[in-house]
């Protein structure tokens, strides 16, 4: 395996939480699901999943995941409850193509957020 075996996927999404829970907890649940989904879809190595979630007012929340088994790391925030959120994410993995990465991203987000494409 070499550098060209890794696939890179970046995306922006606008998120509206589906429940009144803490955005941080919702994000952690989504990330945990996403990592799990990648593992069951043929991903052999998670190089890095990293991103930012912003609500336009609070300090941004940064997240990072580097393994199929460990818990994603979050730092920054806290994000305001009830706000719309802007997600920016980059995924660098092996064994999964960009179409799968995009589809799995939206599938996993849909469990916790109303999700729309976000330009910029």
């Amino acid at each position: 395996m070499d550098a060209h075996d890794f696939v890179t996927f970046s995306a922006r999404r606008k998120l509206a939480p589906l429940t009144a829970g803490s955005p941080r907890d919702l994000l952690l649940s989504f990330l945990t699901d996403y990592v799990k989904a990648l593992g069951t879809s043929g991903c052999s190595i998670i190089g890095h999943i990293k991103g930012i979630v912003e609500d336009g007012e609070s300090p941004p929340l940064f997240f990072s995941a580097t393994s199929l088994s460990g818990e994603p790391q979050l730092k920054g925030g806290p994000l305001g409850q009830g706000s719309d959120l802007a997600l920016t994410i980059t995924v660098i993995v092996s064994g999964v193509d960009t179409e799968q990465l995009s589809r799995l991203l939206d599938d996993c987000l849909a469990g916790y957020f109303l999700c729309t494409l976000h330009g910029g």
Partner: protein
Amino acid sequence: MKLIIISGFLGSGKTTLLLGLVRRLTSGNGCDFVILENEVGEIGIDGVFLEKQGLQVKELYSGCVCCQLAGDLVVTLREIKDVLDPDGVILEASGLAKVESILDTLDRYYGELEGTMVISLADLERFELYQEEPMPFVINQIRYADLVVLNKTDSGDGELTATMAAKLAELNPDAEVIGVSALEGSNLDLVAERLGTWMRTTS
């Protein structure tokens, strides 16, 4: 203007190390730095994080400075020298970068640097990457390092740390290997001291 290249596999803690080092170098040595952040993703993430910490950051994203963005690297270094002329530039290379190719680009097309130092991170949490059949670009990162930093020592026991340090020393016998936890800040003073000495004595 000197160049410090921070390389290491994806998620090995390069940004966290960079932040810890630049804070120490700025306060301890009075040096000013510009950060050059390279990410293969189409959208910069780490640059935003570092800017939020008050650092001066230039971004090169959507490719790697060892190949697709090699020309952009040279142009950006020239611009930084002409406009800002800092004591040093700290380049955080993408986690997929082949260090040898970056050094080759600089040798060929940008000879104005006063010195270049490569710090490569190895990730103790992913020690298996360095065993048996390691990825060539990961080995290249270690082989071309002037200083090897074994990160996330807080996550493993002493025996694993020693085994991994020995493996890294085998891959690059000329480089010092320093174990750190960039997240907790442990041993970063030692790495900063090495860099500070290099900044003062290289011309």
